[in-house]
């Protein structure tokens, strides 16, 4: 091996080492579900009830006083994944003359994967599908099935064990919910807690 080829070999080795370091770095940076700081092994069910959750189409906001959810979570290949399996919604109203007769999530499960964007951790729910039936014969949507579909990204806050969905979290994750071909704004604060083997253990994402 001459001097020049040795230089090329060392250069290639350094490049390969740098590349593997970058790949390793990105793998460890992927957010995982953790309980008391330790990555979750196996599956766990988390549940919660949203506070101040609302769905806004231009000119009409629908708010549900009781917005529960259930997500089955696990770490797969070093990345936190999950699926939304239930989302019962009760006591929903609007800020218009329309009432809410029924609101029903469809097409479960919805995938719920963790994602890091600019150093912050998000939960991205894909395949969201909610059917809403509005009441009051005067309401323009009376007896019309309104469908809200798309993806939703929420910012995870470890200190409060919660996820916050708002315009900023949707923008950061590149997610969007639609109804009537128009973007829907979803705002919500979702506290979470484990409900199986990890009950009362601190849930974090990192």
């Amino acid at each position: 091996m001459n001097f020049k080829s040795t230089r090329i070999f060392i250069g290639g080795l350094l490049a390969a080492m740098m590349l593997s370091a970058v790949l390793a770095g990105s793998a460890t940076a992927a957010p995982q579900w953790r309980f008391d700081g330790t990555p979750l092994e196996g599956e766990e069910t988390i549940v919660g009830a949203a506070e101040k959750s609302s769905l806004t189409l231009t000119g009409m906001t629908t708010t549900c006083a009781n917005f529960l959810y259930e997500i089955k979570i696990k770490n797969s290949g070093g990345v936190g994944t999950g699926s939304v399996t239930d989302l019962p919604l009760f006591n929903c109203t609007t800020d218009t003359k329309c009432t809410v007769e029924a609101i029903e999530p469809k097409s479960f499960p919805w995938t719920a994967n963790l994602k890091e964007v600019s150093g912050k951790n998000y939960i991205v729910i894909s395949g969201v599908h909610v059917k809403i039936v509005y009441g009051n014969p005067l309401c323009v949507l009376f007896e019309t099935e309104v469908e809200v579909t798309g993806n939703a990204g929420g910012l995870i806050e470890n200190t409060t064990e919660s996820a916050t969905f708002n315009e900023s979290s949707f923008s950061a994750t590149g997610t969007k919910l639609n109804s009537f071909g128009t973007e829907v704004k979803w705002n919500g604060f979702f506290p979470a807690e484990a409900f199986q083997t990890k009950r009362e253990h601190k849930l974090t994402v990192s």
Partner: protein
Amino acid sequence: MRKQRRKAVPVVVLALALAALGLTGSAQAKLVGEFTKFQYCPYTNTEVKKCMYAVTEGGEVKLGNKTVPITNKVVLQGGFGKPNETTLISKFYGATEGKPTLQPVAQSVPGGLAGVVPDASSPPLVKRLIKFFFENSITGLNSTLELAGPATNIEISEQHLNRKEGLGLKLPVKVHLENPFLGSKCYIGSDSSPVTWNLTTGPTSPTAPNTSIEGSFGQAEFKEEGLMLHVKEDVLVENNWSAPSVTGCGGILAFLVNPIVSSQLGTTTAGHNTAILKNTIDIATAAAVRFIDKENP
């Protein structure tokens, strides 16, 4: 007594005038604000569940070789009933008080008369007659979409429009070509054999050589505390329709002129035509329109 009679006449006249005013007032629409656009919706018919007022503000109709841009606004108004549970399609009810359900608005045809009856390829008789029109600059050609048959032939599916799939609006029309040379009965399509547009806000699946195009539901906005839905930038498309033969062009010379117009249009079977309608749509329930009517006597 004479004095009393003199007083009584003006009082009677005044009473009659007031009564007449009162009668006129009750016959007028009592809808106010945004709801006045639904004044010709048959909202008193209990089978009508929703009122619609749609304005086509742009788009184009391509028929064979000819494309006519929509530059003048066209109104489609009326109401529709409860959707069929299986097909999700509703029956349409036309505008009231003799107002047009589909407003006949002329659109200018690019190329004018020469575009559909070219001097060069016409038979000598047609050539001689058409010369007069060209020499006197009566060459402008308008195309007017008219509803073919009764308004009940229209079908609408609010759900399909919302979901951007399937038939959103079935509109049977006939195209009226208007120029003094062509006469007043030059049509493509008729009440019995209409041009049927199965318009969608979703993607189309046309016969070749046309390829799929996609409509858009547009931007939805709720107004009047949720009593009205205002949709702007709605796009309805259809590019798998066929056109029936041209009829009645040239009056008594129709047997000569119809084939010329047809040949200039070229192939008008499915896959060669396109309709793109850009609309602003307002919808309210008939119950809401009745409520506003009652609230404003």
